[in-house]
């Protein structure tokens, strides 16, 4: 849909700006979206990531105009969206259920928005054909949704959301309804299409792998708030809190107390690890409580007696996953550890349950988090 563009000079603002938005469904009840502020630049593939009920879908519906914020503002290219109904917003949504109109063909579904814009017939036909080609469905234009497979429906829904060349496309769990194999292929496909059309994508997902593999930036949400914002690598390698570390991928957390600092390394006494751990981190006051987080794949097996951050334990169980194996290791103090070892050789001998192992990790491999 074309926006009623204001004649005023564009203020220095980002493409999509969300300012301190609050949404409560019951007066006085818990906020579904609790003071979210966010700036998204044109052309980004942005992901809102969080567990179900964290408010990410509500935020999406606020952007589409299906809900109105109790507080705060939403600006698209500087235009305040307050009071603008869904049918006048330069925003299109791809629904989780796809919401294809069952009584219309694929082509009619894609043309629906263009018809509302009252474009000339020939232009509509050309645009629909171009959109269906973009999603590689030109040959199925006359099929009704119930004659299409799940993956094909998903493509029609995407073509429909792109047809009006909106400023922003909202994708609600775009891959959730597909089976696993198709989902992985479609990830690349979606990113490819987004690059090609250059439209800003804002995706909601609860799948961290999906968010990390597709998005340029991710906002992790919990209980209606954004708890961390960054690139996939920043979110994974430098989580800001225990919640983020735990939600994004597996993590081993040790509660500990700072003993001292030496040459950029922090010495943390962890009773659970049965040792003092060295972690790369700026100095903290001795005696502060912290948590040390280590990803399972950053722990290695080591025979070296001088390795730093040595942990002695016993294998409890193993899960062979092909490219890697994940082991559950019980430390001397009873703390359970998850360790992922890559199967670099075909004939690698897996660790057996009950086997005693020595593990270690580099100081740079761990992160210090608030307790």
């Amino acid at each position, binding site marked *: *849909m074309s926006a009623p563009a204001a004649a005023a000079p564009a203020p220095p603002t980002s493409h999509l700006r969300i300012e301190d938005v609050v949404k409560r469904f019951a007066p006085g009840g818990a906020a579904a979206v609790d003071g979210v502020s966010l700036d998204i630049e044109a052309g980004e593939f942005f992901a809102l990531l969080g567990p179900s009920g964290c408010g990410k879908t509500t935020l999406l519906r606020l952007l*589409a*105009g299906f809900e109105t914020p109790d507080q705060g503002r939403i600006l698209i290219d500087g235009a305040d969206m307050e009071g603008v109904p869904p*049918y006048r917003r330069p925003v299109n949504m791809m629904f989780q259920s796809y*919401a294809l109109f069952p*009584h219309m063909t694929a082509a009619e579904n894609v043309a629906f*928005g263009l018809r509302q814009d009252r474009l000339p017939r020939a232009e509509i036909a050309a645009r629909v054909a171009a959109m269906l080609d973009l999603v590689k469905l030109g040959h199925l234009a006359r099929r009704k949704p*119930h004659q299409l497979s799940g993956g094909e429906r998903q493509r029609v829904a995407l073509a429909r959301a792109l047809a*009006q060349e909106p400023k922003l496309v909202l994708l609600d769990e775009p891959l959730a309804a597909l089976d696993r194999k198709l989902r992985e292929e479609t990830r690349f496909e979606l990113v490819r299409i987004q690059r090609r059309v250059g439209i800003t994508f804002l995706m909601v997902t609860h799948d961290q792998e999906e968010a990390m593999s597709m998005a340029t930036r991710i906002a992790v949400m919990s209980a209606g708030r954004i708890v961390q914002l960054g690139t996939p690598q920043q979110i994974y390698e430098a989580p800001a809190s225990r919640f983020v570390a735990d939600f994004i991928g597996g993590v081993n957390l040790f509660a500990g107390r700072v003993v001292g600092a030496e040459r950029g390394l922090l010495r943390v006494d962890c009773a659970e690890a049965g040792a003092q751990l060295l972690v790369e981190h700026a100095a903290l006051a001795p005696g502060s409580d912290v948590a040390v987080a280590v990803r399972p794949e950053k722990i290695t097996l080591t025979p070296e007696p001088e390795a730093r951050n040595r942990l002695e334990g016993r294998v409890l169980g193993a899960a062979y996953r092909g490219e890697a194996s994940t082991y559950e290791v019980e430390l001397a103090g009873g703390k359970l550890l998850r360790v992922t070892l890559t199967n670099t050789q075909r004939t690698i001998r897996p660790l057996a349950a009950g086997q005693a192992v020595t593990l270690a990790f580099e100081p740079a491999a761990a992160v210090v988090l608030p307790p």
Partner: protein
Amino acid sequence: MTGRLSLFLAVMLAVGYAFLYGPIVSLVVYSFNASRLVTVWAGFSTHWYVELLHNQAIHDAALISLEIAVTAATGALLLGTLAGYALQRYRRFRGRALFSLLVTAPLVMPEVITGLSLLLLFVALEQAIGWPAGRGMLTIAAAHVTLGTAYVAVVVEARLAAFDRSLEEAALDLGARPAKVFLVITLPLIAPALAAGWLLAFTLSLDDLVIASFTSGPSSSTLPMVIFSSVRLGVSPQINALATLFLVTVAVLVTVAGRLMNARAQDS
């Protein structure tokens, strides 16, 4: 389920069906009887159907019945759709429970009471404001609207309950205004339920004897009323023939309505 019925169950099933449908089958069979006596079989004949064609009183009654049924079904469709839409889409409003009860009450209300109360209403109205002047087709149709509305409301409400709201949101999102969304998305998708509701209301109106008897006036006898009164004077095989035609019509309509109501499985 095991594939085969035990003998006992098969016999019980046959007895049950015979009890339910035996009289109807005998009625249909005797409509093709050559004899004037309904209890003596004298060979196959379509004589009574031919005679029926020339019976003016029955023609008139059939036309009256059809006109009333079309009017009542259309009125019931309008009111019932609104009621069903309100019940399904507005989950919380003051008096919703009472409204729901009142809309569906005619489904279980004894017809005698519905008929009598409407008769009293029409008489009182006539005395108070002079309208409706006397009883006739208008009052029967109005009475049938009350009954049909309940059926339409229930059918429409059920259909809307199975309706994916995100379809309407998607249409809004693509730039269609709410009124247009209702016309091009909601209405086409619930159309089978509307057609089913209309057919049900039509059939109910065509069938009804009790309410029509209370609310009819002179020269507005419906088909069931004509059948009922002529049977009291002695059963003519002509009535069998008429009843058979009636049966076929109603069976076709109800079957179509049922198909339409189940049509939702296709488009989801």
